[in-house]
């Protein structure tokens, strides 16, 4: 059973996106222009971390000046603090292999992207997300803030270099074990309130509700398309809604599915949803023809997978979360706009 969890986590950590990276025309000063770089980017990693691999390809072609790396996809500057895999799942409705990106080393769009000064900025952003996740889970970020400096460095390095064993060894000290999950055979290593030295039975009895860190990237569409290839592409981040809301998870023996979790963080679309057994309504949504006002999930992707909505949410969290302890969900929802909006 333990092996099941390790396997799934290893799959996630091994996941990578093949990239074909072109230097932007405006920055090419050599003839012939440099050929695109072909590299494999870890799903759980971040684009600016590829900088050291990319520079050798392009440094000769660059105009003189200071380099500040940034990426764009079809004209859309990419938010560097979003994990690479999430960007791919979100922006490429029909997965493009390799994924063609354009790299810039000049002209950083500071009015759209927050500054990135290299690895340190990415590390800071990662630790910040980890603190936020810890706060959501425990009500306090103390365990992350109190990490020893060597531990923090090693944890970050393990994420950068995809060293899962090191990551698990250090992150387990943070006691961020989230949900009792009978489906992965992985016991909850700690009570959700993070009390050290509390009697185990007392702690488990006290744990009835948890908050799970979730980040949802939502595209609301009102046209229909049958084929993902026909999905219009994004030219602005304003078309995507970023929902950073924890899922309130009640562990009282109820069967809480992925669909239940998604509904609970989107009360705008699902006003009646609450933590209840949703087996019936799940079937309802799939069998009944689409009502006019009924939102329909066109696509839901986590770590490049499109999981069945009936899967227990606890399994999804324990196996598919990112190293920052957030579950990142990409979602396309079709909903009819009301007249007059």
């Amino acid at each position: 059973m333990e092996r099941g969890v390790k396997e799934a986590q290893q799959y996630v950590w091994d996941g990578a996106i093949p990239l074909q990276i072109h230097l932007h025309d405006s920055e090419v000063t050599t003839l012939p222009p440099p050929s695109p770089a072909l590299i494999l980017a870890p799903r759980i990693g971040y684009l600016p971390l590829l900088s050291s691999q990319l520079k050798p390809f392009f440094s000769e072609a660059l105009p003189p000046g200071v380099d500040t790396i940034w990426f764009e996809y079809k004209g859309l500057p990419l938010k560097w603090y979003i994990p690479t895999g999430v960007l791919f799942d979100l922006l490429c409705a029909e997965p493009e292999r390799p994924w063609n990106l354009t790299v810039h080393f000049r002209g950083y769009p500071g009015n759209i992207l927050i500054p990135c000064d290299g690895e340190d900025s990415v590390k800071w952003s990662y630790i910040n997300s980890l603190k936020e996740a810890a706060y959501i889970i425990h009500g306090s970020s103390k365990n992350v803030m109190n990490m020893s400096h060597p531990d923090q460095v090693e944890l970050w390095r393990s994420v950068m270099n995809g060293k899962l064993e090191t990551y698990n060894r250090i992150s387990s000290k943070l006691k961020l074990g989230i949900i009792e999950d009978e489906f992965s055979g992985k016991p909850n290593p700690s009570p959700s309130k993070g009390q050290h030295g509390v009697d185990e039975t007392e702690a488990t009895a006290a744990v009835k509700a948890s908050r799970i860190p979730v980040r949802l990237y939502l595209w609301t569409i009102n046209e229909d398309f049958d084929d993902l290839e026909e999905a219009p592409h994004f030219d602005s981040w304003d078309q995507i809604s970023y929902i950073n809301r924890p899922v309130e998870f009640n562990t009282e023996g109820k069967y809480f599915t992925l669909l239940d979790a998604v509904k609970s963080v989107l009360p705008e679309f699902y006003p009646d949803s609450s933590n209840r057994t949703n087996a019936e309504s799940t079937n309802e949504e799939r069998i009944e023809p689409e009502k006019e006002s009924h939102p329909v999930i066109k696509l839901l992707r986590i770590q490049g997978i499109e999981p069945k909505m009936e899967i227990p949410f606890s399994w999804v969290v324990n196996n598919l979360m990112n190293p920052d302890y957030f579950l990142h969900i990409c979602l396309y929802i079709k909903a009819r706009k009301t007249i007059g909006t």
Partner: protein
Amino acid sequence: MVSIKATCDGSLSSINFQIAAITFAEKWKKFNSDLPEWLWIDCSNRLGFAAHGVRDGYLSVQNVFFQIQRSLKEDYGECSSLNDYEEPFDIATLTTGDDGYWYDFHVVYSSSYSVPVLYFRARSSDGQPLNKDEIEKNLPTGSAKVLTDSKWTFITQEEHPYLNRPWYMLHPCGTSEWMKLILAGENPAIENRNEQYLISWFSVVGQVFGLKLPFEMLKSVG
């Protein structure tokens, strides 16, 4: 009741934040006619679909002007708000109408930390945005020290959750801790505890910029 528990641990629920925000804006307007008004920016329909019975949004005040007072010695700069600021010693000052910075402040609720968060951006009179160093340099001297010494908050640049643009904010990770201390002496069962939360919160974060709440507003929540 959930709200009583919330104020005891220094946090605020999303619904209570919305209620308190509207009241805050009304009182500010009533007691503070010198400064621009706070507006509640409704974002309930931002997902592109008319939300059913769900309110989402934030408080916004735009174009708050902070005048810089410069001495004849060019290397000395202070910032004061329109309310009041005492020069510690008597020096000749040179001010022009343009000599100041324009701030926008947004109060946005964080679901992760269950507290309000102050987002802000600043620009000079010619419209040039200020960076973090320039902003910190121009804070009232007392608060700049508080920021650097304290573990309660710090200025950081992050994406505005609704506007998709980089804004500055006072990081919320310590907010519930210091709110717990502030509210410790208060009676949690009073009627306007949500209002009290937000007013107490603002009386602290506003100080970073030299923004003081009018006495009547503080008095109104006991």
